[in-house]
């Protein structure tokens, strides 16, 4: 009798441990909700134009450096909205392309792990990262090296440049939780966010960082809006 009780309690303990463990795991698609983040900016866009003196066939004669892109309804583009607390969800592999002497997308979002770096331009580019948590790299990617793979294992916002074409500027957002980048209307939809109270973080390359807490409901879309201020 006592033996049975011990066995039963061990099983119960084990089961609760498993349940606990799975409880800390982020909810999957079924258990999660969507957070729709709207980012607004009241200031003026900052776009620099630079005259191109080389590779004009690929790069065009004028390059634009988009530092602050403000779209319709004062929406701020290229801002990263993420839920850093919801770790361990579906891993997102990073992909960034160098096309027309631009990094596409301007901000790539990825989970800690691998990123595929493409060169669609048929000219030399070099991937030069300014990272501190991850090893900084400066690797040449000549025209015949169409893709290369790098590893960014630590969460970090990594600036990426190309020294051959100094106007090229991109960012790789290595985020531990689910994340999305705002479109030209300043809207980003973060999917598969575990239900419950979550901290939503918004980051922009020149306007900085903000965070807000939202109550995420499974299967529903929760809206939250931010307003970034100029520095």
């Amino acid at each position, binding site marked *: 009798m006592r033996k049975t009780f011990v066995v039963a309690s061990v099983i119960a303990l084990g089961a609760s441990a498993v349940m606990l463990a799975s409880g800390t795991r982020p909810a999957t698609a079924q258990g999660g909700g969507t957070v729709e983040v709207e980012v607004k900016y009241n200031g003026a866009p900052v776009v620099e134009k630079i005259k191109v003196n080389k590779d004009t066939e690929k790069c065009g004669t004028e390059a634009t450096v988009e530092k602050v892109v403000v779209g319709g309804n004062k929406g701020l583009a290229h801002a990263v909205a993420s839920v850093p607390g919801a770790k361990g969800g579906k891993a997102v592999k990073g992909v960034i392309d160098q096309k027309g002497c631009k990094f596409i997308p301007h901000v790539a979002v990825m989970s800690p792990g691998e990123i595929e770096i493409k060169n669609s331009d048929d000219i030399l580019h070099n991937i030069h990262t300014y990272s501190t948590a991850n*090893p900084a790299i400066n690797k040449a*990617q*000549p025209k015949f090296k169409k893709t290369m793979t790098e590893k960014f294992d630590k969460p970090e916002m990594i600036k990426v440049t190309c020294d051959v074409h100094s106007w090229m500027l991109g960012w790789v957002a290595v985020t531990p939780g689910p994340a999305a980048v705002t479109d030209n209307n300043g809207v980003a939809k973060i999917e598969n966010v575990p239900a419950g109270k979550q901290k939503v973080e918004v980051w922009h390359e020149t306007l900085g960082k903000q965070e807000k807490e939202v109550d995420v409901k499974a299967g529903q879309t929760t809206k939250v809006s931010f307003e970034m201020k100029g520095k």
Partner: protein
Amino acid sequence: MWRATITAHLLRCLVGPSLRRGRPTPQSGTSSAPRICTVLVALVRALPVPLVVCVSFAASLSLAAPLAHAQGDANAGKAVYDLKCAGCHGVKGDGKGPAAELLLPRPRDFTSGIYKIRTTVNKTPTDQDIFRIITDGMPGTSMPPWNVLPERERWNLVAYIKGFAGEKLKEAAKKVELPKEVGSSEASIKRGKEMYEAIECHKCHGNDGRADGPSRGELKDEWGQPVPPANLAKRWTFRGGQSRTDIATRIANGVLGTPMPAFLDAVEKPEDVWHLTNFIMSLGPDSPRYATLLTVTAVKDAIPDDPNAELWKKVDPSNIPLMGQVIIDPRNFNPSIDLVSVRAAYNDKEIAFHLTWDDPSNSTKGDGKATFVDAISLQFPPQITDSTERPYFLMGDSSEAVYLLRWEADKGALEASANGPTKVAAIKGGEVTGKAVYANGQYRLVMKRALAVQGAERPTFRPAVFTPVAIQAWDGGAGEAGPRMSLTSWYYLRLEEPQSNRKFVIPPVVALLTLAAMVLIVRAARSRATNT
């Protein structure tokens, strides 16, 4: 014991400036030296110094423990560092020493843990890498070789310097594995050239490696300072050395903290790293072999105006080093033009000078603020006399003028008279002609003038006379104009004596005459003998 050490340390730092005056600063020049010392004294005497000393002393003590594996003693290294290195690299190792602002490239910021020259694939250099740079210095920069220090002290410095980066160098150094070495051959150099074009080295380094690629002006280092690409035709200026392995390692690893990326995985085949090395080594000599005397070759035929004419390929060049002008304001601490190759020829009527120099930008006009017109001058005394007195080498002074054979990218060649760098006046009736070509980061110029001329401001050149000559050059694209120039002090020029036929005629004639005399003497002696 402790107290004594700390007191001694404090004292050393406070009396430091008087000792630091002996530190070699090749770029700082004569007149700026007092200024640096003043800054040093002010810095050291300033209030926060004891605090900084205490903090850094404590830091060095705490660092000694984790660095136990290193061969050097960080504590002992600090003493040497504060005396010999802090003037440029700063007491805190942040590259912000009092002399830093005058130097380009800037002194290394050790706190970043970024080492340009390393034999590792990751950020962390080997101890040997740091030791080697301390020992050999960095050619083409203000970092001198410190092989005057005992080896032990250099290893102590390695231990101390590494400590500035703290956690940033915690990863173990991973040595690069270079592919199997390929020796130089015509085929290898050809393949290297193909690869040089395929991986677009020319974007920065230029078609002939003279650092004139289209991206050159955009390049910045990790600290936001402009950083020019290496001139691959002058490999004696390579920061990390010019041996085959040095060059292959730089190609494979890149130069950290600069735009130079790693190419180890970015060539078609691994051995291409060696083909590239062989090609780069074929672009120029291993040393400039500087000349001490300029010789003007005597020729019989007309001297061509074209800088690419055959004659100029036959005449040996004299390579003359140029330094930045740091005597009067505005000073030029980081001159662009460091070498001019001079070829010269004369015939019975004319004298011509053929000048070759590297300039990464062809500036035929400037905005008058940041960019100016490229120019060069050959300077002579107004009259060539037997006197050893010469005008002031810096383009003359108010009491004595100099004569200039000058060329400007917009105006061409002219004869001028100068009483200092800002007092240059064209000579009326000057007759010099000039023709310049610019290609792939290099100027070639021929200036030609009559050998004998009239006027007190214009010298006549005569054979076999030691003629004082000096050179000044301006890279307008780099903002050089007026006193901001590269220059030499006085050199000597000598017109070799005409190649007359006499040396072929006189000795045989003398030999024949001697023979005739001998025959006559022998005959006379014989006839006397038969007569008696």
